[in-house]
């Protein structure tokens, strides 16, 4: 039986893992390959690196980090942040990533998803969707809007409709982050996850707001997520991956024993 995945997310800025609410209160949490190897040993099912600085200098550093991580952590690695073209994606895959997550650039140029999927296969293309609840519904009647640039810029685009389009264009997975919940420790936006997972057949990764093991369970059970991603609760060692998996197993979810 296919297991539900638990994925630590490493936000990387200028070569270091940073923690805190995304983009604010950044605190140095260590050397990325070091932390990646530790999480792999503790039972992480996959790893996600997000280059939150995404500067040209940062890119070379990131590729070096990916390469060093690939030598030590023999579990799947997804890299996101600032990838805008097929050649840029190729460079990240060549460094040792298995998948690349596309976000702002894909919203600006949806054809990028198609081109990347044609070049590398859908399994290598994750589309990351940052979504925010709208005070009033969008004209399409949908309650969530896509935001870009780390949640700072609204797009007016309906999140569920974008999710469906991204999959039609070849996304093999969706990484769905609630910007409202991100960093708030108030739980995943389960309604958002459900709205998307019920419309697509590809795996959905839940992100944004995890505070404790019950949130992970809810993301799967109520949100229909295939995988759950979190950053700060693991970096701060509030919970270990094993504790989260134990809670998921106790709730009857199928997980991979560490």
């Amino acid at each position: 039986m296919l297991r539900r995945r638990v994925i630590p997310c490493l936000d990387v800025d200028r070569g270091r893992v940073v923690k805190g609410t995304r983009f604010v209160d950044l605190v140095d949490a260590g050397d990325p390959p070091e932390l990646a190897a530790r999480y792999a040993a503790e039972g992480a099912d996959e790893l996600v690196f997000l280059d939150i600085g995404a500067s040209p200098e940062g890119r070379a550093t990131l590729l070096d980090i990916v390469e060093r991580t690939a030598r030590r952590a023999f579990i799947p690695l997804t890299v996101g942040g600032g990838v805008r073209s097929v050649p840029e994606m190729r460079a990240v895959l060549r460094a040792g990533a298995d998948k690349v997550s596309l976000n702002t650039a894909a919203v600006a140029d949806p054809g990028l998803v198609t081109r990347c999927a044609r070049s590398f296969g859908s399994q290598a293309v994750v589309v990351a969707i940052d979504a925010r609840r709208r005070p009033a519904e969008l004209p399409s009647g949908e309650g969530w809007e896509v935001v870009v640039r780390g949640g700072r810029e609204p797009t007016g685009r309906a999140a569920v409709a974008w999710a469906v389009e991204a999959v039609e264009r070849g996304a093999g997975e969706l990484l769905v982050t609630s910007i409202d919940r991100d960093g708030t420790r108030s739980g995943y936006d389960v309604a958002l996850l459900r709205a998307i997972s019920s419309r697509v057949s590809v795996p959905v990764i839940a992100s944004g707001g995890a505070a404790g093991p019950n949130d992970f369970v809810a993301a799967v059970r109520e949100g229909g997520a295939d995988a759950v991603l979190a950053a700060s609760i693991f970096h701060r060692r509030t919970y270990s991956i094993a504790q989260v998996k134990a809670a998921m197993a106790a709730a009857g979810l199928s997980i991979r024993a560490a």
Partner: protein
Amino acid sequence: MSAPLPVAVVDYGAGNLVSIEQALVHVGARPWRARRPEHLAGAAAIVVPGVGAAGPAMRRLERSGLVDPIRRWIADGRPYLGICLGLQLLFEASDEDGSTTLGVLSGRSRRLAGAPTLPHIGWNQVVRRRRHRLFDGIAADADLYFVHSYAGRPEPAAEDAILAETEHGETFVSAVALASLFGVQFHPERSGVDGLRLLANFVALAGGRRAD
């Protein structure tokens, strides 16, 4: 300690070769990339990785002149490990694009039917149908990492090759072994300790010794 096993990793421009190379180095092999037939010289084993569709993969292999050398390699009974697409290519054809594949095993690659999610991405149980040294030291229902939408379905003539099965919507063949020919649908290079163990076992089998 014996010398590192020389392994040619067939490079036809599909997928992440870094992780398979790193994993082979980790288990004591000496891998290099084979882009042309002459690059197979000196290898004690070949690994054919790859993700994506069978048609483009076969076309790239044809262009590199590698199809016949690979067929000969297998016919000579030399060690072969196909990973993911490298397993599917062993069958006769793929439903994905109707392409003809290597035809070493009778059967076709078909889209997983009735799967709750596709692609089938994540860790899933690999349930052994028989004992084999390829799985020495690995639990009989170990979790290994998959990324695919298609899987080879052997005809009765190739039933004997089936080593393990996995369920996602339907039961599919997740490992085959026939003398020195091996294929796995999961990614051992991305399957943690158990995946590394399988690669170590393959390297040991190919080198005619036991993994330790």
